[in-house]
């Protein structure tokens, strides 16, 4: 119940943004005929979304978004709060299913397979498309059990030694192994915020997903922890496809290959990251990255 309230509350700020914008930026009014500019599509698409619309009850949160996420690409999604970037991200592994009033329309495909096919099973989908959340949410279990949770529920291993190996490699990949190797069996909630978030990343990659979705993974962390996670993202992109929602433009600039700019539920511009931050195609993008609103 509470989750529903939370989520709708997240959508509500749209109105606030709307009024704020109208004061500062008159051209923000006219979004009706907006066409996405830049290069939303790639040849090596891992996931491809076309004309996606998302509603919370009768309130529309996402308008006609079409976008590809390429194989082994890091795609950053930026935009003012309430622009729908998190909502869009949560559609990609159907986390929005947990919210009763949320409905998704359009075509969303993972390697050509429609992920909103009613016959499709969300459990293996989420094993393929993992997610890291805004606030570190380690389970109230030991560090080891946190990482081993995914492999255990999916039945990936039969032997203890195999599990140990997965836990170790996942923690290594998440850059946490050295810090926790001596206390694998102490509670995951006892770690610092940054460590907790890396633990959550380790927990996600222990299932060997193909795509990792990250919803503002550093927003609750200090700059040093943030730097570590960013490094990690760069390394992970060798093996995984990553979509990251971020509030920080610097972070998007540092870690991503392409950047998508969302505004009031619409996708305004998608371009090579460098281009977005140096010479954006759209006026709204420019206004945002130069800090005129956000």
């Amino acid at each position, binding site marked *: *119940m*509470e*989750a529903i309230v*939370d989520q709708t509350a997240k959508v509500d700020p749209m109105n606030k943004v709307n009024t704020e914008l109208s004061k500062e930026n008159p051209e923000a009014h006219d979004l009706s005929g907006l066409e996405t500019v830049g290069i939303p599509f790639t040849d090596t698409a891992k996931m491809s979304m076309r004309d996606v619309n998302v509603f919370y009850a009768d309130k529309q949160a996402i308008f006609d978004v079409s976008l590809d996420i390429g194989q082994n690409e890091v795609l950053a999604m930026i935009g003012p709060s309430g622009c729908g970037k998190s909502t869009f991200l949560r559609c990609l*592994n159907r*986390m929005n299913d*947990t919210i*009763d009033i949320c409905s998704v329309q359009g075509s969303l495909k993972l390697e050509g397979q429609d992920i909103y096919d009613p016959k499709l099973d*969300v*459990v*293996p*989908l*989420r*094993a*393929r498309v*993992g*997610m*890291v*959340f805004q*606030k570190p*949410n*380690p*389970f*109230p*279990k030991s560090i080891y059990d946190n990482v081993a*949770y*995914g492999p255990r*529920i*999916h039945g990936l291993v039969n032997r203890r030694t195999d599990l140990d190996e997965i836990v170790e490699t996942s923690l290594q990949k998440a850059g946490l192994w050295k810090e926790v190797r001596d206390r694998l069996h102490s509670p995951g909630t006892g770690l610092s915020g940054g460590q907790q978030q890396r633990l*959550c990343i380790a*927990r*996600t990659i222990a*299932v060997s997903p193909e795509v990792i979705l990250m919803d503002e993974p550093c927003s609750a962390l200090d700059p040093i922890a943030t730097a570590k996670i960013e490094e990690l993202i760069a390394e992970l992109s060798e093996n995984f496809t990553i979509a990251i929602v971020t509030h920080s433009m610097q972070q998007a600039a540092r870690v991503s290959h392409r950047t998508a700019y969302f505004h009031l539920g619409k996708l305004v511009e998608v371009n090579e990251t460098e281009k977005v931050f140096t010479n954006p195609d759209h006026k709204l993008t420019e206004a945002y990255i130069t800090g005129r609103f956000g």
Partner: protein
Amino acid sequence: MNTSTLLVTIIILIAVAYILGRGRSLVLADASKGGFRNLNSLPFYYGTLTALWCGIPSLILVGVWLIMDGSIIDQLLIKSFPAEVTTLPPSELGLILNTVKNIAAGNMVGSDTQPYMTQAAQSLKNINQTSQMAMTVLAISVGILLAAFSWWRIRPEQKARLQVEGAFKFFLLACSCLAILTTIGIVFSVIFESIKFFKTVPITDFLFGLQWSPQMAIRADQVGSSGAFGAIPLFVGTLLISFIALVLAVPVGLMSAIYLSEYASPRVRTYVKPLIEMLAGIPTVVYGFFAALTIAPLLRDGGAWTFEFLGLQMSISSESALAAGLVMGVMIIPFVSSLSDDVISAVPQSLRDGSLGLGATKSETIKQVVIPAALPGIVGGVLLAASRAIGETMIVVMAAGLAANLTANPLESVTTVTVQIVTLLVGDQEFDSPKTLSAFALGLMLFTVTLALNYFALHVVRKYREQYE
């Protein structure tokens, strides 16, 4: 004047005091310049202050008088008895006192009334009248005097509002201290009688004895004349029935809570939840009736049929622990389910998201993330349920047995602590026989155990809540 007329008189006096006090403050305000802006407080407060001075002391006086006069009059009466009567043991003296009171009330003109008794009855009537008269005069004069004093003291600069608000706050504080007083009252009422009991029966015999038969023999030379007060069979019986209840209630209650909070649609929840909670609103005496007249015979007959079918030499007693335990379990289901519901919904959604995001199914998420996270709260809830089962009275009084069998077989009849308390204390009691006093010792045990369970459980639940706040 009888007591209720006196009370009405005092209330009238209070009203008069209020009007007079308020009037005087208005007069004072008018006399000095500036009208009643000159007053420190509103006239209402001056009136109230006078009324309080009038009413509270005299009401307290009446209360104390009513509590005290009984025993003082008894003492006076006993002094008036002939010397050989005064030296009788207290129980016989009490009987004589009762006879005298009955004669005075005109209830009884028995055959064995002796002259000193009729005499005493006459003097009792006189004393009663005097006492009533004295109380009336004293209460009314105290009220009037203090009201007059307070009325005379009224000055424009008097801080009437602060004084009234102080009294208000004191009243509120006194009311909240009633909770402490109740606890103290409980402790004292069970401890004093228990101490008396432990003087006749050693505490170790009570706590560790295996034999319970509190019926004292009438003749001293009868077998087992001392009665046996070993409470172990009662503890075992209580635990057995509570255990059966919890074995039923905990899984069913927990699963209902999980289903309702995690799976059911809001529509189903709005209809089903109150229905389940209705089970908690049914009075326990109804469950007792249901257990004794429906479930117990059902089990007995069903058991007889089954055992015959299986060719076993067994039977289910018609006062079996099983029947009482099962019905008690049904009663506790909503208790467990609403407590579990609370703690389960306190588990943050982010943990569920984390698990679902890894591709866990809903049941895996619940079993491996939500329940472990909610475990301290659930344990606290189960402990509270256990405390309720241990203290439950009517179901066991009506459906469980009276004989103290030391057994762990749920098909047999057992008795419980609460059953024994009720049996020992219903009807006339003599407060000097260990039989009656043993009920208070059992009450002490019951209070101690449930208090410990409650305290511990509430502590666990509070700690758990803080964790996710």
